[in-house]
C-alpha cells in the first residue's frame, strides 16, 4: 500500500500508544485546556461572533496578502527594521547566519518560534559554531533532552513534573533534585537570566505583523520573549509570510480569540509590540532589528482557493487540544514540526501529499478541530480534499506530490466497491450471503483482523432490512 519512503503515522502512533505515561500526561493536560477554554467562552453566541470576525480578518488579510506584504516591508523599513525574504528554509537559515556573522554574534537566546523549528534553525546554527539557547521554559526543557516540541504552544507538555525534576537534576550544573514546580522554574530562570545578559543576539517568532504600522506583535507568558527581543543588541524576528494583518485594529480580536482558544486566558501575561530598534536618545532596546519572512511552500498553498484557508491559522493549538487522536498519541507521533489536525493538513502540503498519505488518514473526520478553530478552518474538508489529491493527478492543482500516494491496491478496492454498490442486484446477492454466512468469516480475515483486536467480530443480522421490507411487500427473496 505504501512506498518505502513514506512516513507511516500508523506505526509511530501505535508506538506512542504503548507509553502509558505519555497517554496520561496528554489526557490530563488536554482535558485541562479544554475546560479552561470553555470557561472563557460562556456565551456560544459571543464565541461565534468573535470567530466570524476573526475569520473575516484573516480571510481579508490573505485576500490582500501580496499588497500587505509590500506595505509591511515599507513600514518596517521606515521604522528601521530590516526586512529579508526567504523562499526556502535553507535561504532563511543562511540569512539568519549572515546577519549573526556580520555582527560577530556567537551566543544567542531564542523566544519561542515554530517557524524556526520548521527551519531546524538551532541545528543549523550549531553546525556553524553558534549557540542558540531556547528561553521559553517548555522549549528550554526539551532542548536539554535534544527533543522537538510535542505541542505548538506547550512544547514540553509530554513530560510530567517528575520527569522534569529528574532531567534538571541531571542536566543543570549544581542543581539539586526537587519536584517543587516553583523551585524548578527558579532553577531554569537562574540559568536563563545569565544567558540573556551574555547574549549577542535574540531570535523570536511573530504572532501578527501589522502592515500599515510595521509593528511585530509577540504573545507570551513568561517575559522571555521580551527579554530575548529587548536585552541583546541584535534582534532577529522570523515569520511565515501569512502572518500579516492590515492594521493595528485587526490585532485586538485576533489576540482575544488566540489566548482564549490556546490556554484559556483572557489575556497573556505579556503582549509585545515591537516597532523598531532603539531610537535616538532611548536607553534600551536592540541596536538593530531584522525581520526574516519565510515562504516554504506557503505561496503554493495560497494559490489554491480552498486550501488557502490553511493559512488563516493563528497557531493557537486548540485543534490539537480537542483532537481525540492527538490526545492519545501526542505530538511526536506526527513526525512533523506542526502536529495535530493543523499539522495534518499543513505538513502534507509542505512535504508532499504522497509521502504523507498515511498522515492524511490519521483522522476519524470527527470534526472537533473544525468546530473549535477560532478562524474556522474547515480541517476535515481539507483532509478529504488532500486525500483526493494524494491519489489523483488533477492537472489544475498545485498540490505538492499530487497523485503520488496512489496505489493499485487502493484503486482496485474502490473500483470493486463501486462496482458492487452501483449494481443493486449484485449488492442484494452479496447482502444475502453476508446475512447467511457472514458469521462464518474467520476473525483473521483481512480488515476483520484489525477490527477484532479490540472488538468482537461484527455479525450481520439474519435478515437485512431490505429483505424484511420485501417480505412485507410480498416480494420475497
Amino acid at each position, binding site marked *: 500500500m505504501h512506498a518505502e519512503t513514506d512516513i507511516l503515522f500508523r506505526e509511530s502512533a501505535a508506538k506512542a*500508544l504503548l507509553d502509558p505515561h505519555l497517554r496520561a500526561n496528554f489526557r490530563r493536560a488536554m482535558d485541562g485546556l479544554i475546560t479552561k477554554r470553555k470557561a472563557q467562552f460562556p456565551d456560544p453566541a459571543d464565541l461565534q461572533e468573535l470567530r466570524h470576525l476573526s475569520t473575516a480578518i484573516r480571510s481579508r488579510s490573505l485576500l490582500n496578502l501580496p499588497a500587505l506584504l509590500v506595505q509591511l516591508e515599507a513600514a518596517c523599513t521606515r521604522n528601521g527594521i530590516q526586512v529579508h525574504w526567504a523562499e526556502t528554509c535553507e535561504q532563511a537559515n543562511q540569512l539568519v547566519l549572515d546577519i549573526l556573522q556580520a555582527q560577530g554574534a556567537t551566543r544567542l537566546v531564542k523566544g519561542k518560534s515554530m517557524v524556526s523549528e520548521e527551519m531546524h534553525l538551532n541545528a543549523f546554527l550549531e553546525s556553524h559554531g553558534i549557540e542558540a539557547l531556547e528561553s521559553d521554559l517548555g522549549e528550554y526543557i526539551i532542548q536539554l533532552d535534544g527533543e522537538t516540541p510535542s505541542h505548538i504552544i506547550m512544547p514540553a507538555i509530554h513530560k510530567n513534573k517528575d520527569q522534569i525534576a529528574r532531567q534538571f537534576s541531571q542536566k543543570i550544573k549544581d542543581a539539586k533534585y526537587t519536584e517543587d514546580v516553583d523551585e524548578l522554574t527558579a532553577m531554569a530562570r537562574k540559568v536563563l537570566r545569565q544567558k540573556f545578559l551574555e547574549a549577542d543576539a535574540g531570535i523570536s517568532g511573530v504572532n501578527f505583523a501589522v502592515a500599515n504600522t510595521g509593528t511585530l506583535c509577540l504573545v507570551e507568558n513568561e517575559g522571555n520573549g521580551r527579554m530575548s527581543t529587548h536585552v541583546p543588541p541584535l534582534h532577529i524576528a522570523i515569520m511565515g509570510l501569512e502572518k500579516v494583518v492590515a492594521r493595528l485594529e485587526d490585532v485586538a480580536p485576533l489576540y482575544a480569540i488566540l489566548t482564549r482558544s490556546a490556554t484559556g486566558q483572557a489575556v497573556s501575561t505579556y503582549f509585545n509590540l515591537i516597532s523598531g530598534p532603539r531610537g535616538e536618545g532611548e536607553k534600551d532596546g536592540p541596536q538593530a532589528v531584522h525581520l526574516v519572512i519565510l515562504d516554504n511552500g506557503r505561496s503554493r498553498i495560497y494559490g489554491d482557493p480552498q486550501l488557502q484557508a490553511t493559512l488563516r491559522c493563528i497557531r493557537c493549538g486548540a485543534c490539537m487540544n480537542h483532537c481525540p487522536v492527538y490526545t492519545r498519541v501526542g505530538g511526536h507521533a506526527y513526525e512533523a514540526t506542526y502536529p495535530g489536525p493543523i499539522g495534518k493538513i499543513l505538513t502534507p502540503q509542505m512535504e508532499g501529499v504522497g509521502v504523507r498519505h498515511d498522515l492524511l488518514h490519521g483522522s*476519524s473526520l470527527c470534526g472537533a478541530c473544525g468546530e473549535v478553530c477560532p478562524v474556522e478552518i474547515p480541517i476535515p474538508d481539507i483532509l478529504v480534499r488532500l486525500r483526493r489529491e494524494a491519489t489523483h493527478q488533477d492537472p489544475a492543482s498545485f498540490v505538492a506530490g499530487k497523485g503520488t500516494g496512489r496505489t493499485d491496491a487502493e484503486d482496485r478496492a474502490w473500483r470493486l*466497491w463501486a462496482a458492487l454498490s*452501483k449494481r*443493486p442486484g449484485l449488492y442484494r446477492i452479496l447482502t444475502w450471503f453476508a446475512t447467511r454466512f457472514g458469521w462464518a468469516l474467520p476473525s483473521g480475515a483481512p480488515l476483520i483482523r484489525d477490527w477484532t483486536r479490540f472488538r468482537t467480530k461484527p455479525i450481520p443480522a439474519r435478515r437485512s432490512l431490505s429483505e424484511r421490507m420485501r417480505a412485507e411487500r410480498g416480494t420475497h427473496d
Partner: protein
Amino acid sequence: MTAVRPPRAYFYATCLVDLFFPDAGMAGIQLLREAGVTVAFPEGQTCCGQPAFNCGYWEEARDVARTQVALFPEDLPVILPSGSCAGMMKNHYPELFHGQPEEAEVRAFSGRVYELTQFLVEVLGVQLKDLGEPIKVTWHSSCHAMRDLGLKGEPQALLAQLDKVELAPLAREHECCGFGGTFSVRQPEVSGAMVCDKAADAEATGASVVLSTDGGCLLNVKGALDQKGSPLKVQHIAEFLWERTHAR
C-alpha cells in the same frame, strides 16, 4: 418548525442499518407510520457513498450516489436512521456533484434529506408516551450527526419525553468513539484506543443502555463492550423509542 405533515416519505436504510441493525430501521419506519406517515422503501438501496468520498475517490462515490438519488424521484422527504449518512447526502452530495450535469437534481434531492430524530421532532412534532419500566440510559453523540449534519439536541428532546428514562451524562460525550469508517481499519491502534476509552466511559455512567443515532458508532462501541464482556447494551435510538412506547 413546519406544521405541514407530509403524508408520505421515503426511508433510506443506510448500509450499516440494513445489514447490522435492521430492527432499528424497522423501528424507525414504525415510528413514522405511527405518526401518520406512509413510508416508501424503494428497492435498490446500497450505500450513500461516504466511504469512497472520504477517501478521496469521488468518481466512484459519484457513480454510486447517482444510482441512489435516482431511487427517490418524487418530491418527498428522504429519512435516514443515521446522522452521518444524512450529513453525506445533505451536505456533501452538492459538493460531490458540483459542476456535474445532475447538479440541480442532486441539490433538490439533498434539500429533502432528514435524519430520523430530526424529522420526528422538527417536522412531525411527535409526542411519545413512555410505557416501559424505569431505566437509566446514556447518550453518545455521533460526531457527524452533531457536527456535520448539525443536530441540535433532537434525540435528547425525544428521550426527555419518556418520563421513566433517566439520561446519565457520558463523560466526554462529544468525543469521537473512534469508528470513522475506514479509519477503524487504516489506523486500527488509535481507533482501538479511542473505542476502549469510550466503552470505559460508558460503563462508568452506570447506565444499562448506550444509545446513539448512528450504526457506525453502535457497531464500534458494541464490539468493544462485548469484547470486555460488559453487560451494557448498545441500541439505536429508533429501536429504543419504539420499545419504550409499545408494551411488549
